[in-house]
Each structure stands twice: as C-alpha cells, then as structure tokens.
C-alpha cells in the first residue's frame, strides 16, 4: 500500500532513463537529449509552483539567472584554491540555492500577496529590475558578465573541465529533474498538496477551511525557485561556462516553461516531462526541417492547444485512465 503511492514516478523515471540511454548510445544524440532534459527539468521545477498554485510567475527565469551567477562566481573566484578541488562546484550549487532561494523569499514575502495578473506583472518587474541593477550598479561584472572557461580549465584540467561542461552538467540536469519529480509527488500526495489544490481552486474558501494559504504558497515558491537555481547553475553555468545578464534574464525562457507546463498539464506529475519532450522535440525538428520559420508555425499551434485542450496532454490522459489499471501510474 505504501509503495503504490510512488508508482506514478515509474513512467517519469522511465522517461528520464530512456533519455539518458539514447544520449549515451546513439551517436550525436547527447546534446539533443541534454536540451530535452533541460526543458523537462525547468518544466518539472516550474510546475511545483505554477502548476500547483496557479500563480503565474513571469519572472521565474530570474531564479535560474541567479543560480547561474552562483556557480559562475564560485568558479571564477575560488578556482585557485587547490584543496577545494571539486568543492568549488559544490560551493557553486550551494550558492545557487542560496541566492535563488533568498530572492524567492524576498519576492514571495511581498509579491505573493498579489493575485493573478498583478502578481505576474510584479514578477516581471523583479526580473527586469534585477537585470538593470546588475548592469547599472556593475554587479558581478555588470553587462560584461563572467566568462570562466579558463578558470574551469585551470581548476580541473582541460579533459575534466570539458567533461564537466559536455557530459556531467547534463547528467546533473537529469538528476535535478528526477529530484524535482519526487518532490512534486510528495507535495501532491501530502497535506501541502491538498492545501495547494484548495487555494488554486478558491483561495477565499481555502482560508475559511483553515488553510494558511500564504505559508503554503511560500513553501511551493521557494522549493520551485531553488530548483530553478540549480538548473541555472548546471545547464547555463557549468555547461556554457559564461554568463551575460541579457542572456540569462530573458523572459522568453519563462514563457517556454509556461508552454511546457501547460502542454503537459499543469499540476500533474507526468505533465512536465511529456510537455518538455513534445516541446523540445517539435522545436528541434522544426529548426532542422524549416530553419527560420519554426516560430511562425509554433505560435498558432500554441494558441490552438490553449483553446482546445486547456488541461494539457496528461490532464486528458488522466481522465481517460481513471478507473483502469493504469490509474495508479498517472497523476
């Protein structure tokens, strides 16, 4: 009985396993798999907040950006300290979580009092404001950002450094996605899941039912933000070994996350991976088949999906399998 709870993870982890294996075995598929797992991971992370609370954080990418800076700063400043060794990566991750976590606490404490559109706009403000602060106050290299391939190479040697950026970074992303999935499940199954569903559906009623909505919103927000930070630290810092403000505070990434979550089915466990795969693959194939026109094709598709299946692929699938043997695998 206890274990049945965790069955829904099986299809998710199967998906990630398949990604990993394809990447390892098929030639030239690794980076594609990396891209897909990146999309799945951000979807999984964002879903924890967006999907479960229904609050749209348009500035979500700011957390990824801060994570990126966390890792970048650690590597760029600590690379000469021999005895730290791989420790600088660990410190990087810690910094990433700290920075994105702290920002989320700050934003959450103030902005989460706002509803709907007001919240969305406020978060855009946070993202843009932060970027201009970095550029205007010349924080962390200002608009020139940080390039640290050199430091990475000097710290670990060419081979290891390259392996870090072209292999381990991607593995980490998969790993983070897996953890995020686990957390999502615990949330869905746990008390907090009930609270979040309630407040997503009707915040007033939820309060009267005895739910401390602010508390649960903040928890979801911080969790989601910290995962975002980790993803930034790996997929953007470790993998690309440089960071320029305009590239990481790029709102279109938030939009991609939203598309993924919505495509798969907001608030579901399986949604993000399904959405991520569909989004990533179709995008990739469009770039390969019709270079330059993918957005033109993509936009109407998105609109169509929103209008036709607002509950997303998994959402529909869920209804289909209710009462069948598959039910316990799908949430």
């Amino acid at each position, binding site marked *: 009985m206890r274990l049945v709870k965790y069955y829904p993870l099986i299809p998710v982890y199967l*998906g990630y396993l398949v990604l990993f294996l394809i990447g390892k075995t098929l*030639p030239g598929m690794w980076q594609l798999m990396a*891209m897909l797992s990146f999309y799945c991971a951000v979807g999984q992370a964002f879903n924890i907040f967006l999907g479960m609370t229904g609050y749209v954080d348009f500035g979500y990418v700011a957390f990824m950006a801060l994570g990126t800076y966390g890792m970048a700063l650690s590597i760029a400043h600590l690379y000469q300290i021999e005895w730290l060794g791989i420790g600088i990566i660990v410190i990087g991750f810690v910094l990433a979580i700290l920075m994105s976590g702290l920002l989320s606490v700050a934003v959450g404490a103030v902005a989460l009092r706002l509803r709907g559109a007001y919240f969305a706009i406020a978060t855009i403000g946070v993202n843009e404001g932060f970027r201009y602060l970095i550029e205007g106050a010349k924080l962390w290299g200002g608009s020139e*950002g940080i390039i640290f391939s050199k430091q990475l190479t000097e710290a670990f040697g060419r081979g290891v450094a390259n392996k870090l950026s072209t292999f381990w970074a991607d593995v980490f992303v998969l790993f983070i996605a897996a953890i995020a999935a686990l957390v999502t499940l615990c949330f869905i199954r746990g008390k907090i899941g009930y609270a979040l569903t309630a407040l997503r559906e009707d915040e007033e009623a939820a309060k009267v039912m005895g739910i401390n909505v602010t508390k649960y919103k903040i928890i979801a927000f911080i969790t989601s933000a910290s995962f975002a930070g980790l993803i930034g630290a790996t997929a953007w810092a470790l993998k690309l070994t*440089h960071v320029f403000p305009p590239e990481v505070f790029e709102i279109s990434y938030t939009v991609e996350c939203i598309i993924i979550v919505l495509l798969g089915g907001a608030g579901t466990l399986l949604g993000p991976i399904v959405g991520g795969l569909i989004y990533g693959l179709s995008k990739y194939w469009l*770039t*390969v088949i019709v270079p*330059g026109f*993918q957005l033109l094709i993509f936009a109407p598709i998105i609109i169509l999906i929103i209008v036709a299946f607002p509950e997303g692929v998994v959402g529909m699938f869920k209804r289909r399998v209710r009462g069948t043997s598959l039910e316990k695998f799908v949430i």
Partner: protein
Amino acid sequence: MKGRLLVSVFLMLGLIGWGGMVYAGAPAKVIIGHPACLSGKYAKAGEQALGGIKACVKWVNEVYGGVKIGGKRVPLEYKYYDCESKKEVVTSLIERLITVDKVNVVFAPYSSGLTLSGAPVAEKYGMLYMDHGGASDRIFQQGFKYIVQTIGPGTRYHVGTLDMIHKVDPKAKRVALAYEDSEFARMVMRGAEEHAKKLGFKIVFKRTYPKGVTDLTPLLSDLKAAKPDFILGGGHFEDGQLFNRQMADLDINVKALSLIAAATLPAFYEALGNLAEGVMGPSHWEYGVKYSPEAARKEGLKWIGPTQDEFVKLFKEALGKDIMPDYHAAEAGAQVLAYVLAVEEANSIDPTKVRAALDKLKFMSFYGGWDVDETGKQVGHSMVDMQWQGGKRVIVWPPEAATGKLYYPMPTFAEKAKGKVAVPK
C-alpha cells in the same frame, strides 16, 4: 492503455533514431557546418553570414574548382541549421553537425555569447571552430584549442577612427564616448579609451546606455552639455539609428560622429535619409575596398577568392534578394576561403592539422588581410572607416584602402535639413 504508452515511447525512440540517420553527408566532400542565426535577435546578421558563406562556397566549387586534397579536387558543401539565436539550441546543433552530418569544420553562430556557448562541445570533439561573429577578445583568453577568429577583435574597432582624426584635425581634442551597455560595445569602448589617451585626446564624456533603449534623449542632452569635438559610440543596429536621429532632434552638432555596427549598413541611410550624411562607422569590410590581387602581390600575400564585385553578385544570387552584403557577410565568406587554403596547406581535413595550418596561414582576399596569433585571435585584418557621402558609403581610412577623401567636419543638422550632403569638392 499500457500498450499505448509503450507504443508512444517507441515512437519517440524511432523519431530520435531517424534523426540519427537522416542528413548524413557523403564522404567525398568537405563539409562546413554552421548553426546559423536565422531567427531571433541576431536574425539580421545571421542572414548576411548565410549569404556570404553560400557565395564563397559557390565560388570555391564553380570558379576555383573545389578544394585540393591529395591532388584531387573535392567539392565544398555547406550544412546549416537555425539556432534561433538561443544558447540551448546552439550546443545540440553543433553536436548534430559534428556527429550526424560529419562536418569537417564548424562555423560559430553570431555574437560572442553564442560562440562561447558552442565552444565546449567543439573542443570536446576536437573540432575546428571558426569564429566570424564573436568579436570579444575574451574568447581567446580562455585557452580554447580549436577556435580561430576571422572577425577583428572588438578593442580595435575605433582605433583607426581616432588615428584618422588625430591626423586630419590635431586641434580636435575633446572626445565623447557613448556606447551600448553590452559585452561587445564595452570592449570597443575600452579599446577606444586606451587609444584616445595614448593619442592625447581628452575624454569629456563617457557613458553607456542599456540594450533595447527606446529613447536616448537624457544621455544625449547630457552629452551635448559636455561640448565634444567628436563622438564615438554605438553598439548594435537599432540603437545606432536612434543615436543619430535623436542627435538631429536635439540639434547636437559635432565635427565627426562614428557609430559601430549600425552606421555601416545600407538600412542606416535608408532609415535616416540625409541626416546620416557625413556619419562614419568602422567596418571590417565595405563595398569598394581596394583589396585586389595586385594589392596582395604588393604586400607579398597570397590572394584567393572572388573580387568584391563577383562576391556581391554571388551574394545576391545566394540570398535571392537584391540586398548589399555588409561586413557580416564578407567576414563569413572570407572564413570559407581561409578554411579552404588551410585544408590545402595541411593537405588534410583533420581538424588538428588544419588548425596548425591556419596558425601559419597569411593571405588576402576581397575581405582584406587574414592572419591569427597563437591564441587564434585575428590580427592580420585591419578595419576600414567608411563615411556616408551623398548617400554612398565611401571608405576614408586607412589611406591605402580609401576610396575617397574624408569630409570633415561633418555638416550641421541645420545644413543637412537644407539638403546639404557631405561630398568633398
């Protein structure tokens, strides 16, 4: 139901697997791979690069007769995808090019950021990675083994301009620097600042403006108050137009104005009309440069490639549009030629050998000189300064490349409004 799930998983497998097979290049060719920026924020420059590369590939195959390896002429093939100007896409496309399409060299996408994003993957596969769109000097301080630059480093953009003004008007001492707040433009600004100090100029104004700015009025009024003799600035395309336009609106008159990137494009004059008269811009290449086989012989350099008129013709054919190539096209094209020469030099397509050959390579083409230092940074290519004179782009510096005299000082906006053009008599 379970069945359906499995099916879809296999379907996905198949889909990806198919990707593994399709587009595999034939071995009897030399293939250039390129994650081009055809959409997204760099679409403009991306299109130019695409045309330039296609033009020179065509020239190599049809005029030059293919690449000479082991006494055999091998055709050149160009394989490109659209990277949407996005970093995630760049890495996966580069790997695809290397492993699936089995390309022999990868041309970097536009901008320093995207170039850096792809570098680790290229390095991993020991693949030659040629940079025609990332001007940052910092790329070459990272100790990458396989990156070679064709575009000139950012710090040199305004050096020539300063030399020129230093020479033609020793009295003009007050210089104002106003660049975009971006990695690249700051690089240019740093170079300009250092050189200006060296030449004894007085920097009376030094500010940046953020990317995507829609109104420069405050900065420009500030600048106006500093009463500079001439202004160096710019960053990208739209801000350059804005810069010039709002100088006119605020009636800021200086002896010379030089803007990076924007000023050299035909669109600049189309957008501004004769407000652009006398405005200058540093450029890696301009139509009309005097680089020719003769010039090459004079400097004792090897010459290869189309003449600039041939290039322009090929470029227009390649894009199927009647637009002039700008330096983004020229440098990308020249990079093709550099690669071809290096391959023939090394008599092999092995990246390491070719990289070594590129290290020694020194040649001239319609694009001008080409030579890199041991880090792979471009040092052999000197930039030119162009000026809008009567709606035409005239190269006014350096003297050896000049196609006309400098018009100095630039007419005031009041004069321009009366239709005055900056054509020297």
